[in-house]
């Protein structure tokens, strides 16, 4: 087991992983990583590694789940047994079921489900390696996967957490800060529409601290939104250019 660190923020105001309070972890996004899913995305955020597959809109089974005027959205968040320091029991835990639900609810306002009545959209979020803030990373990747699947969306959803660590307000907490800090607050935002779709908090913040943390979380969401757009456009360029050499070699033979 990890030991509690003596100090979460050093004399220079840097955090345990060398970030300043307002810095996000280095984030890499990839779209279209799975061949068999309708849409997919992969996110690496610091030590977090999450892969998301989206299937649908497709026929819904069991039939009693049909919603006559819109698509049902099912979401499953799952942590791999090897994703944490100590082996996680592969059975769905209370925590995973709850996170599945809040992620679904944070994505529902973005998906234009009324375009696909009586169908279902399935979202599978697999956390391969976890280091705090996986629900936010999951939301970021899931909205990319939905866009990749060609599902109509009002806006991509970005998510970022903010919280209080050693008396300071910081963004994008990682595992140790989450465990030994004073508060953690994940926020999901549709940046272009400026609408919040998820806000949770555990720990305690004063009103002023809350307002500061909220503003910092929104700023983090906006930064991630830029990365999301980039990742999607990169995917499109791949689709156009990657095939070019292959075509040339065909002409040679």
């Amino acid at each position, binding site marked *: 087991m990890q030991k509690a660190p003596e100090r979460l923020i050093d004399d220079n105001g840097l955090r345990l992983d060398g970030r300043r309070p307002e810095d996000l972890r280095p984030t890499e996004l990839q779209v279209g990583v799975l061949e068999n899913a309708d849409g997919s995305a992969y996110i690496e955020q610091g030590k977090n590694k999450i892969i998301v597959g989206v299937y649908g809109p497709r026929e819904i089974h069991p039939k009693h789940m049909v919603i006559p005027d819109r698509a049902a959205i099912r979401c499953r968040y799952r942590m791999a047994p090897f994703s944490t320091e100590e082996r996680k029991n592969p059975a769905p835990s209370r925590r995973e079921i709850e996170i599945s639900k809040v992620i679904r609810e944070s994505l529902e306002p973005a998906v234009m489900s009324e375009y696909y009545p009586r169908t279902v959209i399935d979202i599978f979020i697999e956390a391969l390696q976890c280091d705090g803030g996986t629900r936010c990373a999951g939301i970021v990747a899931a909205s990319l996967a939905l866009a990749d699947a060609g599902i109509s969306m*009002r806006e991509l959803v970005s998510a970022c957490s903010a919280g209080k660590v050693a008396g300071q307000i910081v963004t994008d907490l990682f595992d140790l800060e989450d465990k030994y800090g004073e508060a953690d607050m994940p926020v999901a935002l549709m940046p272009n*529409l400026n609408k919040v779709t998820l806000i949770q908090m555990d720990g305690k913040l004063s009103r002023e601290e809350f307002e500061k943390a909220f503003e910092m979380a929104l700023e983090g969401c906006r930064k991630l939104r830029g990365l999301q757009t980039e990742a999607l456009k990169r995917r499109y360029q791949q689709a156009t250019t990657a095939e070019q050499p292959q075509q040339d070699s065909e002409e040679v033979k």
Partner: protein
Amino acid sequence: MTLYVEKRQVVTPGELLAQGDYYPDLNTFREGENIYSTMMGIFDHRGNRLSVVPLKHCYIPFVDDPVIGRIVDVGMSGWAVDINSPYPALLPATEVMGRQHPPRRETGKIFEVGDLIKAKVVAADRTRDPLLTTRDRGLGKITRGRVIRISPSKIPRLIGKEGSMINMLKKESSCSLNVGQNGIVLVTCENPEKEELVIDVIRMIEREAHTQGLTDRVLELVKSKFKGERVAEST
């Protein structure tokens, strides 16, 4: 009235396209003064109408669409057909045999589970499952040829403006091509090697659907391919 993106530019969901007096058409929506895209695709506008041509989407059936499907269930008075869409299609026996009484327990003798059929959509709204018919020229069971699946969003490109692409392909390859709006294409040639070549060309069109001057490049490719094939045959 401001337009923020240019024609043929790639847009992503939630991207601001324009502000002011524009009309949001396919895959766009209005929120107050702003018009946003809802899909990853290519922006297009005709006059005041803004639309986005998606790179990928699922097939939603519309009336009169030609489709190619697979029989998945045989019932007393009709068939259930998989048409590569979120909605399973129904093919009633009366739409196959005409107004005569639907013969009981005879449906299995006409189409079996797994049969591929060419059909046309006769009724479709998203509140009920779409209905198909095979009562038209050229429709019915597929007996020979090869069937491939491409993305439904690439079908308009494969057909081309007023059929320019598909007619060119038919003429150059002297094969019969049936394109279902649901992204399924039937290729029938006199020999399997030729079918293979045509499928290669279709795959190329699918890959490069969003590039310009595609018809000319395809024409070149087709000509070189079929010339090569003729040489191979003679040796």
